[in-house]
Structure formats: C-alpha cells, structure tokens
C-alpha cells in the first residue's frame, strides 16, 4: 500500500474508533450497569460464530451495493441521494418477477429478476440525470422527489398487484426464486443453524470489481472522472458532459436497483411492507460510501463494518436497551464516519508537520555536530 493508501485506511479506522467511544458514552448515560457488556456485544457479536459472520456478509450485501451506487455517482461529480427509491423500485421488480414469472425455470427467473431490477433502478436514476443534464435541476432535489415517488408508487403497485391479504405485505416469493446459497451455508453456520448468506455477496464483489475496472481502466471511466473532477475541462476536451451525467446516474441507479433485488431475494423470506418510510439501505449507502472514501474496494470493507455494527447493535436489546437507544448509538457511529474526509486532511497535515520537524531536527543535528556527510 502506498502512503496515501495508509492515510486513507488510518483515517477510516480513526473515525470508527471515535464513533464507538461516543456511542459507549451514550450507553453509559442511559444505563451504566449494562453499558459495558452491551458495548462488548457490539464489538464481538459479529465475529462470535461463523453463523454470525455469515449474517454480517448477508446484511452487508445490499449496503455495499448502495454504497457503491453513491460512490460511483460521487466520483463523477454527482450526489445520488436517490439510492433509496432506486433500491425500492429494483426490489419490487425483482419480487414481481420472482412471484409472477413462474413459467421461467428458476436459474433464468433469478437472473431475470436481477437484470430487471438493475434496469428499473437505472430508469429511476435516469430521471434525475435527465433533469440535471437538460434542465439543470439539482440532482439532490430531484432525487429526494424520486425517493418518495418510488416509495408510494411501489406501495400502490404492491396493493394492486402483489398483495398478500393475510400478512399485509407483498406476496412471498417461492423459495426457488431466491438466490442460490452455493454451499455457503456449510461454511457459515454454528451447531444449531446456518446463516442465510448466499451468492448475493459473491455477485456483489464481482460487481464491485467490475465498477473498479470501469472507473480506473476504461476511456469511459476517464471521461466520467474528468467530468467529476472538472466539468469545464471535460467540456474543453470535447467530452459530452450531459451524456455522462445521464449515464452516470443510470449506472448508479442500476447498482442501487441490484441492491434491492439481492436484498429481497436473500432467502430469509423478506417481503415488502406497505409503509410510508423510505428504505434505509439507500441512506446507509451514503455512510458506507464515505467511510470507504468512495473507493470501490474500500466500500467492500466499510459495508462489512457497518453491517457488523448493526448486527451487534441489534443484539444490545438483550441487555435491556430500548431499540431507540440502539439506533442512536449505531447512528452516532455511522454519523462519525461522515467526518472521515476531515480527519484525513487533519492526519495528512499532522504527518506533514511531523515530517518537517523531523527534517528540521536533523538539520540542527548536522549543524551541531559540525560535520555534514
């Protein structure tokens, strides 16, 4: 790893540690007796068994992808805050195919679900992209709107086309519409039960690598990043920035849509509820992207870390902490992740100054010694 890589890694670790400490203080305030065991649970639960480790990967799957979605847009100069709506829309389309397209053999049906979800996400991302490119509407505003439109539209579609009267949610998919586990259940299990971790995490890692290659190795990535770093220079070089804005939002949307598919096809029997709340995965993606410093590979790790904290955090309820406190603690930790860039620049300066002092003292040594080699 080169020097800036070390700096990136250090600053990410540092914000997590600070976030954890403040989370611990909140636990102490709310119930000092139980704070320590509860805090230990956050730190250790995800790694306490192979089954829990599998669950960490399972819950990391969608947020790595939404994180990647946010980061991809960010690298090209756009802030995709609409991952939530794209996620919901993608998830719905995946479930719809899983429930209704039973005439397709399972492998093709599963593939169709994922691809259709990606397309649905791309479509949902294209709307803010088009508005930005041709009408100069700021993507944050239009993304917020597409989030709500997506949520209510999907609620409407579920009630009219996929409603399970008994459960009040979307119809449950047959189990052969779920992602195959590919033998992962034999690795990630404890004595009693196996984790539901499945091929979704493998697909996710493959997508991350694909995105990395697009951004770093292709002319398309060169154009996208040029637009992100300096729109005017990209224009000067004859790059069609409007086209790039639309493509970038579509790819970003496709990633979030895929996250929706992999989330609802994970074999835990998830179905979509009719609630007036935006999907959290989209927003967690923002923290994951920042914590991973918008680098595809970094996002794999930050996604796993955030998932780990959520899983352990949820466990704190056993110690009598209400779910709200749990949410607050996890949120604070994640909130601190947003400071990662600030910490990075602080660290960078500190290291630089340290280096200077070093040089100076060396010079002084030489002058004191009177002989320079």
């Amino acid at each position, binding site marked *: 790893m080169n020097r800036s890589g070390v700096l990136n890694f250090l600053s990410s670790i540092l914000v997590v540690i600070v976030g954890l400490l403040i989370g611990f203080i909140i636990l102490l305030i709310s119930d000092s007796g139980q704070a320590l065991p509860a805090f230990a649970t956050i730190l250790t639960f995800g790694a306490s068994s192979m089954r829990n480790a599998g669950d960490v990967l399972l819950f990391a799957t969608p947020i790595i992808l939404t994180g990647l979605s946010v980061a991809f847009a960010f690298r090209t100069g756009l802030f995709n805050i609409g991952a939530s709506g794209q996620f919901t829309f993608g998830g719905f389309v995946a479930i719809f195919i899983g429930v209704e397209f039973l005439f397709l053999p399972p492998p093709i049906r599963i593939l169709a679900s994922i691809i259709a979800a990606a397309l649905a996400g791309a479509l949902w991302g294209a709307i803010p992209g088009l508005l930005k490119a041709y009408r100069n509407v700021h993507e944050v505003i239009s993304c917020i709107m597409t989030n709500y439109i997506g949520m209510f539209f999907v609620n409407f579609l579920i009630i009219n086309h996929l409603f399970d009267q008994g459960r009040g949610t979307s119809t449950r998919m047959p189990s052969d519409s779920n992602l195959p586990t590919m033998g992962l259940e034999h690795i990630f299990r404890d004595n009693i039960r196996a984790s539901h971790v499945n091929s979704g995490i493998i697909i996710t890692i493959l997508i991350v690598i694909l995105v990395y290659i697009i951004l770093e*190795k292709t*002319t*398309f990535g060169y154009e996208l990043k*040029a637009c992100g*770093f*300096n729109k*005017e220079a990209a224009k*000067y*070089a*004859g790059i069609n920035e409007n086209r790039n804005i639309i493509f970038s939002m579509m790819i970003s949307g496709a990633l979030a849509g895929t996250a929706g598919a992999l989330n609802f096809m994970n074999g835990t029997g998830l179905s979509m509820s009719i609630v007036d709340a935006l999907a959290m995965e989209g927003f967690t993606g923002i923290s994951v992207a920042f914590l991973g410093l918008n680098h595809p590979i970094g996002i794999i790790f930050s996604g796993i870390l955030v998932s780990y904290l959520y899983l352990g955090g949820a466990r704190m309820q056993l110690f009598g902490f209400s779910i709200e406190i749990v949410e607050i603690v996890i949120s604070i930790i994640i909130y601190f992740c947003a400071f990662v860039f600030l910490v990075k620049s602080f660290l960078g300066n500190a290291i630089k100054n340290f280096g200077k002092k070093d040089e100076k003292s060396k010079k002084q040594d030489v002058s004191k010694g009177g002989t320079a080699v």
Partner: protein
Amino acid sequence: MYIIEMRNITKEFPGIIANDNITLQLKKGEIHALLGENGAGKSTLMSVLFGLYKQEKGSIYKNDEEVNITGPGDANSLGIGMVHQHFKLVHNFTVLENIVLGVETTQKGVLQMKDAREKVLALSKRYGFDINIDKEIRHISVGMQQRVEILKMLYRDNEILIFDEPTAVLTPQEIEALMKTMKDMAAEGKSILFITHKLDEIKQVADRCSVLRKGKMIGTVDVASTSKEELSEMMVGRKVALSLDKEEAKIGETILEVKNLNQKGKADESGKDKLKNISFNVKAGEILCIAGIEGNGQTDLVYALTGLEEIDSGEIFMEGKDISKAKIRERTESGIAHIPEDRHKHGLVLDYSLAYNTILQTYYTDTFQKGGFLKKQTILEYAKKLINRFDIRSGQGEETMTRSMSGGNQQKIILAREIDRDPKLLIAVQPTRGLDVGAIEYIHKQLLAQRDSGKAVLLISLELEEVMNVSDRILVMYEGEIVADVDPKQVTFQELGLYMSGAKRDEVKAV
C-alpha cells in the same frame, strides 16, 4: 518615523520563498508603488500586512510601535484597508449595504442606516464619486465597484490604503479618475501602497517605488529621478530586450476565416453585445495578435472559435470548411489547438496525473485506447516523451498529481499537449499569464517555432509588450468590436493604447 514599516519579512510556501527578508517603509501621506513581475511576491507581502498570511520571520511596525496582525480585523483596527484585485463585494446587496457590512450600527439588534447613509454620501461627494448608493452591486460597472471598495476603506476611517493592481480591469478614463482620487487621498494625509507592474502609472502618481524580484527587495527609489528604463531593469533583472529575434514571416494560405461574428449579451449580465460583426482571418506562418483591455470581448471570441459557446450569428471557416456549428471535438479534430485563458478551469484536470492530462484531447484515439480500455503503458511513455521534449519539471515524473505542480510547469503540460497534436491553428490565450521570465521566453519561442513551421497562430494578450514583440499583425478589440488592424512595426505603444481605450478607431475590413 514611518507610518508602516515592515522589517525583514520572510514568508515561505512549500517549495518557494515568496518573500525573502523584505523591508518596506511607508511614509505618511505618500503614494508608494510596489513594482514587480507576476510572482515576484508583491501580493504575498501585502497579504502579510493585511493579516491574510502570517510571516515566518520579521515584524511590522506602525509609527515605530510593533504590531501583531493576525487577521483582516486587526489590520482594520490599525487603520489598514485593502482593495483586492478581485473585489470582495456581495452582489445582491446595495452599495450602501456593502459599505457598512461588518461595521453596522445597530440599536437593540435593529440596523441603523441613517448615519451611515449620511457619512457615505458625504465621502462620495468629497471625492467626486458619482455613485448611486442604493443600486445593487451587480447592476453597476466594474469601475463603480472599485469605488465601492474605496468607500469601504474610507468609511472605516482607514489611513493606510493598499491597492492591489487596481487598474487591470479599468478603462483609461476610469484609470485617470482613480489616479486623481489617489492623489486627493494622499493630499489629505492618507498613505497609499499601490501594487502594479505598469511603469506609466507609477510615473504618473507615485512618490517612491519599491521593486521586488523573485521574492527579494531590489531597492526603493525616488520615482521622479528614476527613468522607466531603470525601473524595468530593476524589475526584470537585466536589460529588457524589447524585441525577440525573429525571422521574416513566410505567410501562406488562409487557415482560419471568421465572417460577421455576432454574440448577444445575456440579459442577466450587462446586456451589452459581446461580439459585434467580427471578421478577420489568420494565415499559415503568421502570428496574429488580438490586443485589448481585459473584458472587451476577447474571451467571448475565443469561446466562439473553439465552440465553448454557441454563436448567435456569423460564420467560421477552418481551411474553407464551415465549422460555425461544429461540436468542440470536431473543431479540435479539424486542427485547432487551444491554450485556454484559465488553465485551472479549462486546461487541466488538476486531480489527474500529469500523464492523464497529456491525453485529455486524444484519450479516445486508437493510440491510447483499445476496445474502450486505456493503454496505460503507452500513455506513460507518451507523457515521458513530452516531459523530455518540453522540459516539464515535476516531483514524481509522469505520475505526479497535476495539482501539486508549479504554474509554469502546468502551463507546459498544456503547451506540450496542444503543440504535439500538430495542429494547423494554435489559439493561445494569455499563455504567459502568471509565469516567470524564463517560462515566458520559452513560451514565446515555442509560439515562434510554430509560426516558422507554417502553422497559424492566434495570440490573445493583454500585455502590450508581448503584443508588440511576438506578433506579425495586431488586431485591437474594444467593446466587442475590432477597431484596428495594424502592423507592429508601424504602430507605437501610444497609438495602440488609444485604440484599446476606444479613443481612436479605424474602419477595419476583413483582409
């Protein structure tokens, strides 16, 4: 006793000593010019005085008492005011609101403007500023905006006034008025520091002049007893050669032809036409220079030629081919190279490596990509070649982040990239702005080399000396029109000045 004395000031930036042990003494009631080339350290020194930078060594004295200036607030309470090169005004506030901003009088949290209004009106009247203090800043001219900046200092009862290159954006009439104002203020006992690199202005108003070169103080002289030649020699460090060695131009075919170009102004800006009936052509083997004061349509003309902005009407031909409606890349491919005015805005992606910036115009060609994948090795080798050929200096060679490089070397990347594409027409917009003498000479030689190899060169410059030295033919732009088409051998500086200020104009026909 000096009203302000800066003793042995040293200010370093990473890799450069901007001010090296500089001592500057300002007398009460004098106009003291600070002369130096771009990058000599004038602005840094003034920023130290105004509290924007903290010096590493040295100290500042006011009336022989040491003072510690840690920010503009301190400077202000010591009576030091500054008119920055780029004005610091709130555009949707009125003149009056801008003047009181930061020192408002309030009563129980409610703004009291009555006294302020009277004081500003009185000041404005005393100096003959014909200014409507209730107009919003965005609706008044640049010259008026500068008067607002001056009023800001006067309103705060500042007695030490710093002017950072105040004439760069003004018309000759406005310059005349400013000079008078400065003299009036000095006569009332205010002390003025006047940063410039224009010798005429110094001769006109300044009492004494301190010259900086490459961060060092060369000396302080009495203006009345020092000639312009002596001043310029102090500034540049050698006898200034007024003309480059160049051979007779071998003029060839017409490369670029522009006919009746018009560009309307936008309603939200000044509303004036940006370009009016511009017609001219550039031939192979000549350097055509467009001279003029900043903001007279040169930028708009370049945007129109390169396609950065669409034109309202008119035609542009490149070797007889109509490119008036062509996209930017089509124009680039038709043989236009463009060294842009603002290298950070248009010319470079600062967060890309040096190598990636060398392929900004050609990354999509088969040389640098195959099947949509960049050929990293080829790109690095290409960058290495350009680094050697154009002597581009950087910390880590082709992998250096462009942002970390010096301005001169950044400019060389652009120059290398554009020249190496073997263009037919090179449009260079203020290619030497902000560069040191060595880099300027290098760039002038490259421009001449292009011309001598049969390329057409269109040079847009604000520096009269550059215009006279480098060009084979000069067009002068004034308020969006071409008002003169002259031969540099037959025109004088004074004449050019008259054209540039709109005081004189010829009927110019397309040649």
